């Protein structure tokens, strides 16, 4: 009898995997986002390597045209929706509560729901390679190419369904982040004392909340066109292909800022700390970020200059596109101004931050070139645009994310990432990145179109294509060095201490890694750089009370079940509507269970 009781007692102890699957701790969810996002980053990288291998020499025959189309489309979708955005969400999750002085996000279970839906959408998108073919119409899915007439397979249905799931996941996460930042700040943490990173998070979340519903409608319309016989985008039946382009880019351009603003926020935290002086022009950089967010909704038609919009729209969108360069330029001057006269520590985090500024500036300049419709017409659909987006997304977003990883790794794990291997990986990535993407400027100018799976000899494109392919392998090697550094560093002892960089923001006021409840006592904030203010004014952090009475939300498996229901709906939309009905019932059941679940 006693044995039986003992067994029951053990069975109620949740296993380690189960505790991760049902966790609602924002730091654990951040780790899940981070690991999953980095895995998809590697998958997207492999897709890119296959594309580059095919293009290394003229008349390459590594992969056929059909697979090539799937690979370049899925590469873009993977990098945007499954790698950069989730890696951003990983940092958001980890540092929103720590930066604002809260114990968790406003809705811990919604937070986990966002992760599960991201994982479902990501798996659906990636596994489509094995179930009838991955999306093959580009990440923009231009209609009518993406309609049933020209893309009869399941490929573009995987595109619409997985993007609907991923979009809902991002929407849920963004709503949660907005409420958390606005509503759960520590005493004294006014909006204008928020770290710049929090401001960029807030702008990104608003961009997503306001742009995702637009593309959701687009995906629904495309799905209806393909499956239910509507003709939204088929010109022969009275539809309008330009409607798709407008809908897509009203989402698509804010999305570009969704990808870059988090990295701008990260370097705005790294550079002051490593320059050992406060950020130069805090208000300017905050308002510039907000201005980018607002203007970001008014520039979408510069993606459509060659569609014949007419003179007036071209002038308007040309002007708004040039205007958005101004707040971007302000930020760059702020970072340079912060470094100027500073006592700079050049460690790996700073290497990546400075690399970010340099490479993002190149991408920004080639971007503002396209504000001119005349120039844009020359560059449309050439490799010049591929060079531009990769300078912004790799040179910008990914370099910023690496900077953040090196900067916050001590906080997240209590360990430092190896510096010498880190600097080596920086230089390999930096060289590989430029070798891959800079030649694409030349290729584009000399007329090489994007998205072609091969090209003829003697077009003058052979050399630079070979250089770009070699560069991509160097780049991949650099990322491999980072992965090695990660695993090597995880075996080191936890020597980082609470505040190894002597940084000013609240996350450094707690232990590394932080306890589940983040702060023993919620700190009071007196200044924009709270820890530096406390140091300069001799304010000690309140001592840990003898008995902690902190109630944290219990784990929940409802987010997982609800996301499973959503995945069933998605599969039903691809296979049989009966499955979707079953999925809807699961969703209703789990919403009820969720609402009735005791949380106190």
């Amino acid at each position, binding site marked *: 009898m006693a044995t039986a009781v003992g067994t029951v007692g053990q069975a109620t102890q949740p296993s380690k995997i189960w505790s991760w699957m049902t966790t*609602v701790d924002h730091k654990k969810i951040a780790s899940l986002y981070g690991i999953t996002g980095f895995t998809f980053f590697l998958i997207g990288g492999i897709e890119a390597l296959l594309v580059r291998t095919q293009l290394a020499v003229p008349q390459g025959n590594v992969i056929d045209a059909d697979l090539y189309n799937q690979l370049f489309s899925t590469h873009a979708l993977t990098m945007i929706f499954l790698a950069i955005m989730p890696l951003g969400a990983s940092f958001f999750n980890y540092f929103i509560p720590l930066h604002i002085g*809260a*114990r*968790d996000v*406003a*809705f*811990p*279970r*919604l937070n986990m729901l966002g992760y599960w839906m991201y994982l479902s959408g990501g798996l659906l998108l990636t596994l489509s390679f094995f179930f009838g073919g991955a999306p093959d119409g580009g990440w923009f899915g231009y209609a009518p190419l993406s309609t049933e007439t020209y893309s009869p397979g399941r490929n573009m249905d995987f595109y619409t369904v997985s993007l609907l799931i991923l979009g809902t996941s991002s*929407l849920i996460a963004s*709503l*949660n982040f*907005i*409420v958390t930042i*606005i*509503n*759960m*700040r520590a005493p004294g*943490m006014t909006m204008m004392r928020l770290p710049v990173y929090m401001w960029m998070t807030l702008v990104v979340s608003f961009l997503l*909340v*306001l*742009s*995702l*519903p*637009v593309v*959701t*409608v*687009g995906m*629904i*319309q495309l799905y*209806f066109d393909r499956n*239910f*016989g*509507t*003709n*939204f985008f088929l010109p022969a*039946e*009275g*539809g*309008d292909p330009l*409607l798709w382009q407008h*809908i897509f880019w009203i989402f698509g351009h804010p999305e570009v800022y969704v990808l870059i603003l988090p990295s701008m926020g990260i370097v705005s935290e790294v550079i002051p700390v490593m320059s050992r002086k406060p950020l130069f022009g805090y208000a300017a950089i905050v308002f510039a970020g907000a201005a980018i967010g607002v203007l970001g909704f008014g520039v979408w038609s510069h993606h459509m200059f060659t569609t014949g919009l007419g003179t007036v729209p071209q002038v308007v969108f040309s002007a708004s596109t040039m205007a958005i360069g101004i707040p971007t330029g302000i930020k760059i001057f702020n970072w340079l101004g912060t470094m100027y006269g500073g006592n700079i520590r050049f460690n790996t985090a700073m290497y990546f931050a400075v690399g970010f500024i340099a490479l993002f500036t190149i991408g920004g300049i080639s971007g503002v070139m396209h504000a001119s419709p005349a120039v844009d017409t020359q560059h449309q659909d050439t490799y010049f645009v591929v060079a531009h987006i990769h300078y912004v997304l790799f040179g910008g977003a990914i370099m910023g994310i690496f900077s953040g990883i090196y900067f916050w790794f001590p906080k997240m794990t209590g360990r430092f990432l190896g510096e010498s291997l880190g600097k080596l990986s920086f230089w390999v990535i930096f060289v590989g990145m430029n070798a891959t993407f800079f030649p694409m400027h030349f290729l584009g100018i000399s007329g090489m179109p994007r998205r072609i799976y091969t090209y003829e000899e003697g077009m003058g494109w052979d050399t630079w294509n070979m250089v770009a392919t070699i560069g991509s392998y160097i780049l991949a090697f650099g990322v491999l060095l980072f992965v090695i550094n990660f695993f090597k560093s995880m075996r080191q002892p936890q020597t980082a201490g609470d505040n190894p960089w002597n940084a000013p923001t609240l996350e450094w006021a707690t232990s590394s890694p932080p306890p589940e409840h983040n702060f023993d006592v919620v700190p009071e904030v007196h200044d924009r750089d709270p820890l530096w203010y406390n140091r300069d004014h001799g304010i000690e952090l309140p001592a840990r009370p003898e008995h902690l009475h*902190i*109630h944290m*939300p*219990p784990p929940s498996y409802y987010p997982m079940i609800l996301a499973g229901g959503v995945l069933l709906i998605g599969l039903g939309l691809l296979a049989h509507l009966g499955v979707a009905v079953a999925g809807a019932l699961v969703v*209703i059941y789990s919403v*009820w269970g*969720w*609402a009735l679940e005791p*949380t*106190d």
Partner: protein
Amino acid sequence: MAAAHEVQHHTSTGVDNRKLLMWVFLASECLFFGTLISTYLIFKGESLVPPRPEDVLDIPLTSASTFVLLMSSLTMVLAVYGAQHGRIGMMKGMLLCTVLLGLGFLGFQVYEFMHFVHEGLSLSTNQFGASFYVLTGFHGFHVGIGVLYLTSLLIGSMRRHGLGRDRDLWVDTAGLYWHFVDIVWIVIFTIIYLMPH
């Protein structure tokens, strides 16, 4: 969607987290319906084949269903009043009325859709059919979600402890959603039915 958090009762803005979540979500919904309505307007008068709006739309009938939905907003207001002033019977009764009026609106919509299909208008007939059905269909879907939402609150309020100490917040937040769906219908009704074809 309870925020399991100690801070929920004293937030930085004074607005409860759940209510703020609903407000921001409704901002997102504005863009959702805005895109659907824009699609309808872009395709207005672009149908290549009949039936066109003037051939099938029945303004008196839809005015009646619009009246039903408007009345449901009134009963929703009364339900919120009951929840806030501790008049639980009134809250339950008015929630029930709102649910029934919502179902009545959906009944009108089902009848209207069936009638239009009978007249030869389907999703694939022309641009009017596609944009009309998708716009009003997704609005009806939102009404349906609202009916489920309010029914859940009604069932919850019948339990021994009712809706608990956050009763007024639960009903108030559901009211925000319900009024939003109602307001969207006013816009849709004006644009599709009342504006000259």
